[in-house]
């Protein structure tokens, strides 16, 4: 009924025919609300929610006395009747009705008012389970008759009027040979006859039921106590059910220990990607990784070749389009929807295999460098170089970057054992590791008991057939995706088949702080925290430096300072923004700590709160990359056509740099970007709150810890929204377009 009213072609006719509009309103007022309420939707909706969300999320509101009082007031028959009457009268005033016809926003508001008021109106009539009746049954027919009187009065005015009330219909094209006045008369009749029936039939039904034999007069205040199985079969049951549902014994100590789940570790019953037919088999196969790496390797070679020898126009070169428009978007989508699958298919790792085959890998990575500090420097340098040297706009530099990457992987991995390049150096890997903290899949043990009995630890040490984890992650103590390249060597090595790619709650690993294999406690790893902050900083800086206002300001400043190049200014801006972020995050955590009077180590607190900003930063990265991808989704086609044309293959015809256009309108894209940032902010705030509760036992002190830091998160969010709404440079797209 609701669909018929607002989503069917009836809605399209409502602008042309008042009678169609009236049918639409009648469905909203008298058909769909009572049917929805008859379905007693509250309990099914609650049962449909995850139990924890229903109990801890919705439950406190439903059992809140103040909200119940408001609910009782709103569902009181007098309030309900007045709400319906006011809504009906106001929206039928010619000026207001015409306003709704002229503006879709007002039209939607009109429908929302009708539907909301009507839900309220029918509430005392239907008394949906598990509501409590506030007036006795005999009053319901009178309540309906009073509503019918109003409806009759309004419909009579429409039916018998000799002039058209709503001028918009005078201007509308006439359909089916009707005039505007006859259409209005027809609308009045629809409102009168079917509208009255909608009130009178239930009134008659309830009256007959009330007067029928066996019905007892029950005073409302004593209804609950006097109810029996025949009169109110569910009411008593309702109370017991709801009580059980929302007052499930949850002790204060349980609520106050957010990391209680970390202690239990089991993974039975969870989704396991390796158990999915075909996909699981493919991922387990040793050759599958080689296949994926091979594909990426060929693509990397193509990018290098075209970058070095192709036209130096980013939008016409594979090195301008494939890495910066497609690859980045696919990586972030894969990270957020599954896991770190790029590292699994990373072509740079083929050289590690070469080094292993040549038997050159004899040295261990120097102990002094066994931290993420080198990665932090390289990670920062990567983003700095990207901005300063406009890598996205220089195919030859992109090609050289990939060549240097291959050489670095060859030099490091051919000499040092383990996965030193991935673990301590690779900037792309660090990006993926940080973002994969939000991935919904994790390489994880299935049953802790099996690992407890295991003596060989093949997942770490390997065996004669398969090598173990080169990232030194001992699976029973592995928590989260940090440092996991999804190589699945551990899966193949485990003789007990006790390792899977399991579903986990995205981001919750940031809240926990267990002793992690190879990583240790996050609260004690300042290097990883700084890495996370660089990730956060780069998300906003990378996007900010491509928006027109900032780019213009930078150019203006460079001119003011008589600089021949913007490089020094970009570098200074880069450094200043990072320092500002460091000061803001550190300062806010210190402020919160001081306000709440907490004495935990500062370093640990700053580290943990830095990780909580990752969701917001990932949202910014996603919004940024999707912008390029969705607006330039077809930009590879002409580039491939050009490449094939260069080889004399007329594959797909002549290259044509003006193709289908964006896959999404700018308005929808802004909506998508804002929605992503919304989710990122809320996830960040939630993680921050959970971490605050770890440090502060009381509610007020937890709020005190949280508030200054949350201010920084909100500031970043605001900055992110502002960036997304600015005109941007279209990197690696078919033409330098602005909007």
């Amino acid at each position, binding site marked *: 009924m609701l669909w018929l009213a607002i989503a069917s072609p009836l809605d399209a006719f409502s602008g042309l025919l008042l009678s169609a509009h009236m049918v639409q309103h009648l469905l909203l007022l008298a058909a769909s609300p009572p049917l929805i309420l008859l379905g007693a939707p509250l309990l099914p909706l609650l049962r449909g929610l995850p139990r924890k969300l229903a109990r801890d*999320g919705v439950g406190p509101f439903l059992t809140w006395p103040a909200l119940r009082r408001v609910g009782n007031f709103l569902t009181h028959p007098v309030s309900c009747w007045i709400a319906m009457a006011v809504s009906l009268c106001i929206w039928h005033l010619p000026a207001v009705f015409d306003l709704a016809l002229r503006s879709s926003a007002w039209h939607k508001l009109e429908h929302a008012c009708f539907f909301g008021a009507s839900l309220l109106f029918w509430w005392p009539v239907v008394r949906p389970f598990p509501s409590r009746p506030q007036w006795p049954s005999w009053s319901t027919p009178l309540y309906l008759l009073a509503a019918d009187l109003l409806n009759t009065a309004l419909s009579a005015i429409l039916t018998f009027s000799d002039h058209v009330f709503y001028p918009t219909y005078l201007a509308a094209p006439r359909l089916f040979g009707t005039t505007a006045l006859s259409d209005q008369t027809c609308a009045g009749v629809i409102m009168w006859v079917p509208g009255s029936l909608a009130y009178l039939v239930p009134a008659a039904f309830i009256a007959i039921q009330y007067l029928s034999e066996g019905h007892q007069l029950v005073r409302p205040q004593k209804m609950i106590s006097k109810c029996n199985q025949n009169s109110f079969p569910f009411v008593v049951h309702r109370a017991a059910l709801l009580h059980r549902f929302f007052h499930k014994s949850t002790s204060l100590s349980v609520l106050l220990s957010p990391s209680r789940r970390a202690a239990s570790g089991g993974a039975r019953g969870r989704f396991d990607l390796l158990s999915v037919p075909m996909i699981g088999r493919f991922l387990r196969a040793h050759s599958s990784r080689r296949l994926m790496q091979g594909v990426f390797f060929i693509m990397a070679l193509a990018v290098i070749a075209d970058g070095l020898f192709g036209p130096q126009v980013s939008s016409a070169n594979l090195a301008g389009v494939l890495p910066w428009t497609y690859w980045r978007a696919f990586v972030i989508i894969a990270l957020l929807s599954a896991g770190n699958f790029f590292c699994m298919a990373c072509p740079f790792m083929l050289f590690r295999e070469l080094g292993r085959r040549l038997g050159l890998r004899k040295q261990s990575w120097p102990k002094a460098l066994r931290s993420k500090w080198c990665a932090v420097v390289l990670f920062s340098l990567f983003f700095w170089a990207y901005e300063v040297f406009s890598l996205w706009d220089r195919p030859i530099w992109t090609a050289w970057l990939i060549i240097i990457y291959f050489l670095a992987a060859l030099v490091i991995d051919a000499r040092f054992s383990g996965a030193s390049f991935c673990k301590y150096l690779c900037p792309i890997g660090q990006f993926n590791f940080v973002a994969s903290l939000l991935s919904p899949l994790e390489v994880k043990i299935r049953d802790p008991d099996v690992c407890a009995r295991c003596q060989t630890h093949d997942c770490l040490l390997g065996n004669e057939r398969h090598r173990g984890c080169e990232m030194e992650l001992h699976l029973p103590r592995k928590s989260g995706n940090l440092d996991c390249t999804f190589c699945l060597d551990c899966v193949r090595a485990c003789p007990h088949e006790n390792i899977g790619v399991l579903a986990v709650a995205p981001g919750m690993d940031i809240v926990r702080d267990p002793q992690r294999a190879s990583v240790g406690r996050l609260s004690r790893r300042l290097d990883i925290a700084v890495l996370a902050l660089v990730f956060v900083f780069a998300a906003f800086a990378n996007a900010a430096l491509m928006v027109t206002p900032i780019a213009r300001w930078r150019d203006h400043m460079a001119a003011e300072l008589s600089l021949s190049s913007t490089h020094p200014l970009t570098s200074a801006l880069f450094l200043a923004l990072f320092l500002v972020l460091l000061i803001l995050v550190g300062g806010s955590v210190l402020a919160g700590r001081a306000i709440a009077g907490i004495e935990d180590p500062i370093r640990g607190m700053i580290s943990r709160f830095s990780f909580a900003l990752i969701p917001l930063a990932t949202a910014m990265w996603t919004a940024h990359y999707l912008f390029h991808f969705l607006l330039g989704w077809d930009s590879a086609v002409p580039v491939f056509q050009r490449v094939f044309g260069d080889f004399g293959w007329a594959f797909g015809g002549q290259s044509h740099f003006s193709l289908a256009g964006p896959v999404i309108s700018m308005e929808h894209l802004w909506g998508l970007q804002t929605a992503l940032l919304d989710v990122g902010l809320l996830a960040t705030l939630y993680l921050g*709150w959970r971490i605050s509760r770890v440090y502060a036992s009381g509610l007020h002190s937890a709020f005190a810890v949280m508030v200054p830091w949350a201010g920084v998160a909100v500031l970043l969010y605001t900055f992110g929204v502002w960036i997304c709404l600015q005109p941007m440079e279209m990197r690696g797209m078919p033409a330098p377009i602005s909007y």
Partner: protein
Amino acid sequence: MLRLCLVLALFIVSAPRLANGDGGIIRLRETQGPFSVTVFSPPERTPEGLTDVSMLIQEAGTGNVVLDAAVSFTPSPPRGITVGPPQASCCRPRAGMPLLGGTGKRSVRATREQASNKLLYAAPVELNATGNWQLQILVSRGADLARFDVPLPVTANSGKLARLWPLLSFPPLAAAAFALNQWLRFRSLQKRSLVQPIV
């Protein structure tokens, strides 16, 4: 299979409502000479963007839909406004919207190809300033010619932020609801802990 059929059926019957590219609200319903036209445009326009204007042409006498007319839209800016060159748009120029004439006013040819509903003639019109625009529509078929003037009020740009307000207001609302939830839970647990010892 039954579920799939139901979903498919629901999708098919929903499709007409989704096809709302043409239409919008009625801006003009008028008869001139042999043509009776109804002009539609979206209810909300922004000065920065292209506004899709579409039009139904019927024969004045019979009401039959005219499908072979030549239609052009010529927007005139509000008084005192000088319209600059067309702004580059994020959307690439669509086929079938050539600029005609050299009077300074830009005319756009409306075609049925550009309309989602092929009974209508449509064209994107650039209305890049606030105020009361006039859209001059010329309809011709053979020797028949008619001219229609449509007032198109362009209100001040509601702004991107205003258009995104539901999304922008969601985080504070959600955060406030969460804070309230935590307070209620904490209060309820505190009450319970006073009655029974904490486990």
